[in-house]
């Protein structure tokens, strides 16, 4: 048996008005399971980021439901959604969005600080994660002094620091060379995945497909198929 982390059904999202109205996600239903690394792949513009935002409580769908551990995400108030994202989710954005005016370690501490963890403890914990991603000596540098791959690792450490149940990564390897990309994905998988966690990665990078437990294909807003390689019992 497996536990379902996210159950999405009939998700539909439109953009634009009138003539320009287009459907970005159309009647998408799928599940993401604890213990698996789920890939969302498909051509550019197929609606991957849109779907990812909807299931993480960032973008409201026009139709459909998202159940996380049985509770309906889109029935929540904005503040409840914020709390949900803060307490349950970890995000790695495609272009990192690190604060250039803060040090690397302070950047990593942000989710803890949002959770009102006291400053010194937050920094100490962040330092631990910085060590995990192998950048302890860069703790007091601003992120701009780091290479692209190092910044990506900082962004990942930031997503991991609050120990989220669901880790969401949008194109985490887009700006990395093949080898670094593979290393990073492998690293994320080995350091965060367990039977109580779930990782969802949006990508069109074939070089990292080998780490997937499940691959979900999208085209023109529709989910065209899902293959599960591992964990299918």
């Amino acid at each position: 048996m497996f536990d379902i982390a996210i159950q999405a059904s009939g998700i539909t999202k439109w953009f634009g008005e009138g003539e320009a109205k287009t459907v970005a996600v159309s009647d998408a239903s799928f599940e993401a399971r604890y213990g698996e690394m789920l890939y969302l792949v498909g051509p550019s513009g197929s609606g991957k980021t849109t779907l990812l935002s909807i299931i993480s409580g960032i973008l409201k769908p026009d139709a459909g439901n998202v159940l996380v551990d049985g509770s309906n995400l889109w029935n929540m108030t904005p503040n409840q959604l914020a709390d949900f994202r803060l307490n349950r989710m970890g995000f790695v954005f495609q272009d990192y969005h690190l604060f250039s005016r803060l040090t690397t370690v302070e950047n990593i501490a942000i989710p803890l600080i949002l959770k009102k963890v006291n400053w010194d403890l937050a920094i100490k914990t962040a330092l631990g994660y910085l060590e995990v991603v192998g950048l302890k000596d860069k703790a007091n540098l601003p992120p701009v002094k780091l290479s692209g791959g190092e910044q990506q690792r900082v962004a990942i450490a930031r997503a991991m620091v609050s120990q989220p149940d669901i880790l969401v990564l949008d194109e985490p390897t887009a700006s990395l060379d093949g080898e670094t990309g593979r290393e990073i994905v492998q690293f994320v998988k080995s350091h965060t995945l367990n039977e109580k966690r779930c990782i969802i990665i949006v990508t069109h990078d074939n070089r990292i497909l080998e780490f997937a437990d499940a691959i979900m294909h999208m085209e023109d807003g529709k989910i065209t198929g899902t293959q599960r390689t591992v964990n299918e019992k």
Partner: protein
Amino acid sequence: MPGLLKIAFKLLINDKGKFAALLVGITFAVFLMVMMMSMFSGILARSSAAVLNVGAKVWVMDPAVNNVNSSIPLPDTVLDMARSINGVKYAVPVYFGGALVKLRSGSYQAVSVIGLDDATLYGRPALIEGKIEDIFAENAFLVVKDAEFKKLENPKIGNEFEINDHRGKIVGIAKVQATGIFGVPTLYTTYSRAITYIPSSRFTTSFVLIEPKNEMDIPYIQLQIHKLGYEALTRDQFINKISDFYKYQTGLGINVMLMTIISFIVGLSISGQTFYTFVLENLEKFGALKAMGAKGSELVSMILFQVTFTSLMGYGLGVGLATMMMLFARFRLPDYAAQVTYTNLAFALGMVLIIAAFSSYISVRKVLQIEPFDIFRG
């Protein structure tokens, strides 16, 4: 300090260029506002110097008078009537006028002359040197030792001079509370000598000074004087009247007000603009925070904290700078008239808070509008 505010603080001060620009904008605006208002306050305070120095409780004057130095002479009947009002302990005339003194060096110096009632010397100054009775001696004058004293070539007791072609002799050196605005030395003499030495019109009394029996008699006295067609003002009322005259009926007040408004607008636009760009530059980051689970109210508190911190710091720097400037100016120029009043400080603070509120408003609006989805999409 809550961690989020610490983050806000670091975001602010680590952006040294913008932080400096913000501080400079607010400091500059506060500096200008405080300087302008303080100079004006200084001028106002000095414009009433004679009222303070003479110190009478009630001043009787023609209603058209709005300045000690341009009094309208009162007929002698006013004095007599004033003496007959119930509640008046005594009423005396005082003379204010100007004269020309010819100094020993041969040069001329304008002076202002105050003639005190011969019988009571009501309104006399405190003496540093000499005896007050000597004011009744022949040609006797007291000279006030203030910032203008040296314009009379630092006279000593016994020095003689020429005043409007009469002989004058210094018999005492006085000190007064406040220095006047017009930059001329002040001489005291008796009323009778003043009106004989200084050419005047048919009526010679500049003001009638009244000492009431009791503070509570003042309204009645004022009413009686009013019935005669004259005005009786308490010391504070007279000072306010003079201030209002300078504020609203001379170019001085209007210009100071304009300068203050301009400083305010300059400060408002510099800091509003800079803070807005600061927020714009960090907008994606604020959006990322929102995506990670920061609530709108938390982002607002970050911005308010940044704005408040910068504004108060700019305010402190501006006030400090203005004060230093004034101390320095006073050190170099004894006549420099500027005083920092609490009202001025409060007003400048109010203006700074308006600047802060405006900057916060435009920034908060922007931050609340961010869609975390747009950040997600990159």
